[in-house]
């Protein structure tokens, strides 16, 4: 039994680490621009799919070139999303921006469908597929890559927002845009950095997990949904809350699949999320908001 639970936990953390990176992306964009970006899952897909496309075939690039290029491409898509879809709709209501990002996610999926087709693709494991045994539980080296990579990225993001000039400037934009502008912060540039960073996290998540999970043009939908759930669970707009929410959601799913019912595991995840919201209407680590009168 204990062996089983150890396995469920290891699985849960791996899956949760992916959710955490997507949730972190949601959080950063929301903080910077008050937009819930439902195209966040598509960043994950674009990162993975473009890396696969660039390294495929005989004339394919080496992975050392393809992976960075895929990341740059995804960042470019993120910045373009801000420039051409979010920025022109300045002052639109929250629901309108939600529909815009949903439109963007459908659009990106459509482009991926045209460019790369409908097939399912895989990336090679970074360092072999020999399972690592921990007691009776097993892990793949790639699981360690996912956990380690996610941890490093989270620490990096934390450091960026708390210790760099630009990170603090983005936070200032999110608090009060006009005030930020008045003290000489280039709000437009900060927005681009926030969207680029968010896309970067998505691409990294895609590259890290695709060896285990495979990918296809429509792989972003479910990840976007789970990432949003995780961000809400942790408290929307709190980056570290989003990370905690992601890992927690992964654990809940894995433990309920193992211990209760695999058919209803997603339902159990959402029921727990609802219960949390009923008792803490701003998520686990979110600040209660007062309505402005």
């Amino acid at each position: 039994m204990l062996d089983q639970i150890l396995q469920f936990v290891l699985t849960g953390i791996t899956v949760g680490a992916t959710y955490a990176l997507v949730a972190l992306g949601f959080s950063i964009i929301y903080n910077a621009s008050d937009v819930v970006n439902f195209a966040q899952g598509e960043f994950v897909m674009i990162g993975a799919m473009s890396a696969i496309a660039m390294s495929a075939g005989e004339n394919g690039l080496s992975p050392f070139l393809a992976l960075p290029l895929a990341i740059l491409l995804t960042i470019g898509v993120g910045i373009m999303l801000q420039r051409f879809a979010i920025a022109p709709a300045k002052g639109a209501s929250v629901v309108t921006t939600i529909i815009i990002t949903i439109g963007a996610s459908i659009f990106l999926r459509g482009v991926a469908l045209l460019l790369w087709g409908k097939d399912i693709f895989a990336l090679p494991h970074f360092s072999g597929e020999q399972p690592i045994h921990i007691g009776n539980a097993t892990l793949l080296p790639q699981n360690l890559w996912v956990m380690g990579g996610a941890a490093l990225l989270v620490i990096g993001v934390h450091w960026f927002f708390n210790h760099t000039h630009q990170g603090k400037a983005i936070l200032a934009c999110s608090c009060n845009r006009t005030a930020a502008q008045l003290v000489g912060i280039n709000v437009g540039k900060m927005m681009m950095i926030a969207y680029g960073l968010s896309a970067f996290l998505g691409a990294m998540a895609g590259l890290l997990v695709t060896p285990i999970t495979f990918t296809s043009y429509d792989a972003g939908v479910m990840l976007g949904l789970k990432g949003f759930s995780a961000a809400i669970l942790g408290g929307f707009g709190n980056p570290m809350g989003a990370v905690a929410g992601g890992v927690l959601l992964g654990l809940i799913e894995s433990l309920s699949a193992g211990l209760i019912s695999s058919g209803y595991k997603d339902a159990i995840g959402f029921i727990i999320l609802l219960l949390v919201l009923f008792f803490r209407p701003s998520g686990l680590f979110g600040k209660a908001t007062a309505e402005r009168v």
Partner: protein
Amino acid sequence: MKRLSGFYLLAALVVLLPIIFPDNYYVTVVGVTALLHAILAVGLNLLMGYAGQISLGHAAFFGIGAYTSAILTTRYGWDPWAAIVVGIALTGSIAFLVSRPILRLKGHYLAMATLGLGIIANIVLVQAGDFTGGPDGLGDIPTLSLFGWALDTDLRWYWVMGATMLGTVWIALNIIDSRSGRALRALHGSEVAAEMMGINTTATKTGVFVLAALTASLAGSLFSHQQSFISPDSFSFFFSIELVTMVVLGGMASTYGAVFGAVVLTFLPELLVVFEDFEVMIFGAILMLMMIFLPQGIFVGLQTPFRRRLTRRESPIADTPGE
């Protein structure tokens, strides 16, 4: 009755279309779907547009109505009309029960909670296969008959769906103009301010939430009898999103806007099929562009400048969009 002139125009359009184009696929087949979507969108618009409460799980109520009708008529041999009533009662009770805790939430948290509810409902439809038929769905659902008049052609369904849609629009317009309608709009503006004015915000929100759910349930039952086959795919999270899109696309807080959004979003994919592989991309692009350039919705967005031109000479006061 100047304020209802829009309604008469809509009614005339619904009545005239099948007379001018009898047996036209776009009228009697796509049209029926558009009318169904319009019923759902008008109901959801009461909640979203007027009470300002977002719901990303509306397909769940649509599904509960549809499945109650389907299960009672196929498994227990009930009369379809009785099944519809039970469906509405059941959906109403469920909506009432969940409304209290859910409507305490705000903004994105409310969006998440309703989204979660919708997904849970869909998972139950898929997993409780012995009862719901699982992902393969439920078939052989009998059609409705009205005073011995069996609804067995697309045209007959068009009339029933059209009448129901007009009824829904009529009720929605009247609610908005009533005392509770003003309470609703106050809610959208500011809840605290509404409370200060003596409006029972919780009761008002619960009321409109349940009403929207009832409308969806009725639409679900009709859908179930019209299609004679239903499966969980028709009640998924994607359909909830589609409904929200209809409301926002037409223009929030405009009943006609909701109808317009439903019609546009039903016909758009139908027209885009000629683009084959490009369909998904074009659909996404159109959705994005319309919302970027007409953030108030197409109907409201295009109507405002037009109306302003008409009223310019009469009054200098800027009008408020929508009905």
